[in-house]
């Protein structure tokens, strides 16, 4: 598989991308001179400009918009915000861990041999290949209490009257959102972890086999220790991406019923554009910083020190 090939190549680069080691040479190693230096500056300017204009400036402007402490007191006293924080924690805690653990298990399953396993993998990655919007809109309609496919199927096949998944209860609705998120993103992480598993040399398994490690032991003593680092980095990365996930919540539950299933990413947009309070919207997003900053620092360190094939 091309994926494995890619991983092997990636792994053979022992140099982390962002930490240029002194050992590496450059054709211009004696220092850039005259016009060469000008060229190098000219090459870097487009990205520097892009970063300053569209990352640095918005970040600073955002910090400025959300500078007033009163905004945060206003948020704290809002029941909608309080619920949103709880939702975000549940969304991350349950969603990310279920998804990553599921991906780890699924990647083990896809290590099986046989043509139908390969075929299944091709279908299994469909949710990742299909754009988020059509799928989430479809799930939204599928979960409609009155006309949705799920309740129609429940009624036609089992004679059960299904609940209004998104209309009646906060927990059913939040659960549906989490399930949709897992549906969409588990295949992606499965592929990453599958590539990680395939990069484990077969000899290790043979040696473990000799020593009598089979089944679960094979997993706990061989696969998992070797995958642990990759698993950790993926989980961190996935936590950050999930924190910023707007589409799942916005299109599956829309924050409903009664604004009870918002997460920080969607509530921020709602406050800024529907309630027309951009400062409050920024404050909502900024209140995720205490969680984000340690994650980012940890992740940046990990990405520097490991060669996790990322």
């Amino acid at each position, binding site marked *: 598989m091309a994926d494995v090939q890619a991983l092997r190549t990636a792994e053979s680069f022992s140099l982390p991308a*962002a930490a240029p080691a002194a050992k590496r040479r450059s*054709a211009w190693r004696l220092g850039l001179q005259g016009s060469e230096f000008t060229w190098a500056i000219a090459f870097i300017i487009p990205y520097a400009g892009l970063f300053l204009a569209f990352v640095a400036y918005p970040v600073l402007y955002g910090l400025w918009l959300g500078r007033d402490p009163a905004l945060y007191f206003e948020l704290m006293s809002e029941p909608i915000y309080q619920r949103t924080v709880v939702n975000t924690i549940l969304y991350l805690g349950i969603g990310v861990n279920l998804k990553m653990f599921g991906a780890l298990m699924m990647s083990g399953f896809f290590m099986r041999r046989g043509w139908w396993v390969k075929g299944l993998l091709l279908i299994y990655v469909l949710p990742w290949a299909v754009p988020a919007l059509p799928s989430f*809109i479809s799930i939204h309609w599928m979960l409609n209490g009155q006309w949705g496919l799920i309740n129609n199927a429940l009624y036609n096949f089992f004679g059960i009257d299904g609940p209004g998944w998104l209309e009646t209860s906060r927990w059913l609705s939040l659960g549906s959102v989490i399930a949709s998120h897992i549906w969409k993103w588990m295949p*992606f992480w499965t592929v990453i972890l599958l590539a990680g598993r395939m990069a484990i040399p077969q000899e290790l398994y043979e040696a473990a086999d000799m020593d009598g490690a089979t089944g679960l032991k094979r997993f706990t003593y061989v696969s998992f220790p070797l995958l642990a680092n990759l698993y950790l980095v993926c989980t961190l990365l996935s936590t950050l991406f999930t924190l910023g996930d707007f*589409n799942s919540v916005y299109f599956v539950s829309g924050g409903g019923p009664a604004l009870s299933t918002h997460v920080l990413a969607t509530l921020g947009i709602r406050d800024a554009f529907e309630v027309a309070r*951009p400062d409050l919207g920024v404050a909502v997003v900024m209140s995720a910083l205490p969680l984000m900053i340690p994650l980012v620092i940890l992740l940046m360190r990990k990405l520097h020190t490991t060669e996790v094939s990322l």
Partner: protein
Amino acid sequence: VTLALTEGGAGRPNYRNRRRWQEAAALSFAVIVLIWTLTPIYNIIAVALEAHGDVFTNDVFPSKPSLESFWIVITQGYWYLEYFWRQFENSVYIGVATVFFTIGIGSLASFAIGRMRIRYGWMVSNAALLTYVIPASFLAIPFYRIMGFYGLSNNLWSVIAAEVTFATPYAIFIFQQYGVSIPIELDEAARIDGASPIQVYFKIYLPLMAPALVAVGTYALLLAWNEYLYQFLLLSSKKSMTVPVALAQFLNSDEAPWNYMMATAIIYALPPVAIYYAFRGRMTAGLTTGGVKG
């Protein structure tokens, strides 16, 4: 293997039974995975094939499937769809421009950092990495305001700027990793022959980076095509909208024509799915890959 060895000849049928049982368990698990994966996708197709009145029934399978909805979409025969092809063009335009600028800006920066080893290049790498891990949706509010300052409201270029901003960090990341595998001696030889940095970039660096360019290009194209939030915030008029924004507009009407909506969704989803399967091997070249953001 171990099992067969210890149990010896007498254990053989037992072992075979066990294998068969495992295979059956795996197959039934596969069926569950299939149902889980395909239900939402089946729902898109089933609703798209229904006639307008049949959407609001309790059928699990469309009673009289027809392609009428697709025809309505293609001929722009419904008022929500009056600019469908225009919007499709906008999506393509944004996608192509995003690919071009992401590859251009990303490869130039990687060349300066990784090959020419410009001083403080690591700072640029770190800035890029930081941008990659910050969720794009968190920057949306100030970004929207700033586009107003730049005079780019309701302009396709504001969206292109956003998509390029969020695709380039990944590009730099991948280019630098991939670039390590290209021997630096090639640069040295070219330089001794009197090539200027721009010649080395065009004649040596870019051609040898082709696989990484394809991987990043695919990533950027899919990112721009699939992204919703920025396109929704930055584009407001029907003529400047992209397909995903138009698709979500359907939800605003009281009794959404779900069959037209799903037919639109299918037409919108087909190109990225085709590209995804065509470039699947290449896509995972860097392996963090993506669709991740968005």
